[in-house]
């Protein structure tokens, strides 16, 4: 068995700076907070959306509506998964019609999760615009989907993966590059 091999890409301070920059970019993209809604994708996207919303609130002094989206039931590989994935909470804050929805997720990879999220959001209403904000873009897209806001671009080789850890769920803020086979 090979030794666990973890390289820290972002430590807690770097992650915090990345989120602050992302919060500013969200504000610019949405031209303020008037129609802004942040939707985090379960699970870690929900925490990240919450952090970005709080950063915006500190700067702007207004409450930013945020929600959570679990895309499990919209996955295109549900047929192929053996034991069924546990489904998380979906919570949409009010009607989405006319809103600028910013989807927040931890890692952007194949784009299939975002495809599912777009389909699911469409069943909740017709936002005037949907944007995509991710902490890490690791490349490897299988669908024509691109992010609007990226915290960090990471080049990932074969046999490696990106782990995003957040204080609320994992006890610390950190983004790691992990060699496959290492314990999660």
């Amino acid at each position, binding site marked *: 068995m090979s030794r666990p091999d973890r390289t820290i890409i972002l430590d807690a301070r770097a992650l915090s700076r990345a989120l602050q920059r992302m919060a500013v970019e969200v504000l610019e993209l949405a031209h303020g907070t008037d129609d802004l809604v942040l939707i985090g994708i379960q699970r870690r996207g929900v925490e990240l959306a919450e952090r970005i919303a709080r950063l915006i609130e500190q700067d702007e002094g207004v409450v930013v509506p945020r929600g959570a989206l*679990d895309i*499990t*039931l*919209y*996955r295109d*590989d*549900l*047929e*192929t*998964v*053996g*034991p*069924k*994935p*546990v*489904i*998380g*909470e*979906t*919570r949409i804050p009010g009607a989405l019609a006319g809103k600028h929805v910013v989807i927040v997720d931890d*890692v*952007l*990879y*194949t784009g*299939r*999760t975002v495809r599912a999220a777009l*389909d*699911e959001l469409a*069943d*909740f*209403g017709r936002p005037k615009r949907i944007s995509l904000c991710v902490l890490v873009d690791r490349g*490897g897209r*299988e669908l024509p989907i691109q992010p609007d806001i990226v915290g960090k671009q990471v080049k990932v080789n074969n046999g490696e993966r990106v782990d995003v850890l957040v204080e609320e769920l994992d006890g610390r803020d950190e983004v790691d590059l992990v060699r496959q086979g290492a314990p999660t």
Partner: protein
Amino acid sequence: MTAPPLGKDLVGLEDLSADQIRLILDTAEPFKEVSERPIKKVPALRGKTIVNLFFEASTRTRISFEFAEKRLSADTVNVAASGSSVQKGETLVDTARNLEAMRIDMVVIRHPSSGAAEFLGNRIRSNVINAGDGKHEHPTQGLLDLLTIRDKHGRIEGIKVCLVGDVLHSRVARSNIWGLLKLGAEVGVCGPDTLLPRGIEELGVCRFRRIEEAIEWADVLNVLRLQLERMEMGFIPSVREYYRVFGVTAERLEKAARPMTIMHPGPMNRGVEIDSRVADGPHSVILDQVTNGVAVRMAVLYLLAGGRPELADAAKGAGGPE
């Protein structure tokens, strides 16, 4: 994150472990929200064909299953015993095999014979879900009752639940008893001696001869339907006497030390087993049970729907989901 498997069929709660029951209840939680959406539909079972095979009259259960199936985007066909080839003498297995030859994925079956669901599940490849078989079990009713108790009391362990009425003939009672005991509830039964199964104490169930004692003991009363033909069969002297002795009335509940949660699997006989003031009262969760029924059935369909693990391995090689 993946969940422990459930097996091919859902025949009864007797066959499930506490963890499997908890998995179904936990999976039902997010499905409650789906029914509150503007578009009450998710694509999880797109392309699956489900046959609702009802050899016995049913409104609530059949409609609840049908809503659950449709809200998961499955295609559904309803087959009732009357007006089908069953009337012409076709056997259960032949009916099911003919349906399978049309490439179906799941069968939801209600049948007057105990054991029919398991019998069918052992003979066809499709998933089989028991929607009530004779006096045996009605597992999705048991599950929705568990979910409703958990919603109301925040837990099931340690809650005292008394089943009132015709326990002897009730598949709802049987599924409730198995599910409640597995999840650590205390279970009681109350009714005329003629309608309580002999030796039920051996399962760890308390027996109450008087409804007043049951009310004093319980946190939850699950009032079972009294089938009126029981009177003709001599199990009870008369409906009026039954109501006088065992009816769950507002007067009786007023004497209880604490508010009592009132459940009923429906359809209700108002003024026979339950007083209208109780059924419509502030502690009745009878309509919550109906709402939860759809969520629980969605959870069961989702968890049983044939995943194809062999395709999962192929998908892993090609990246898979992030």
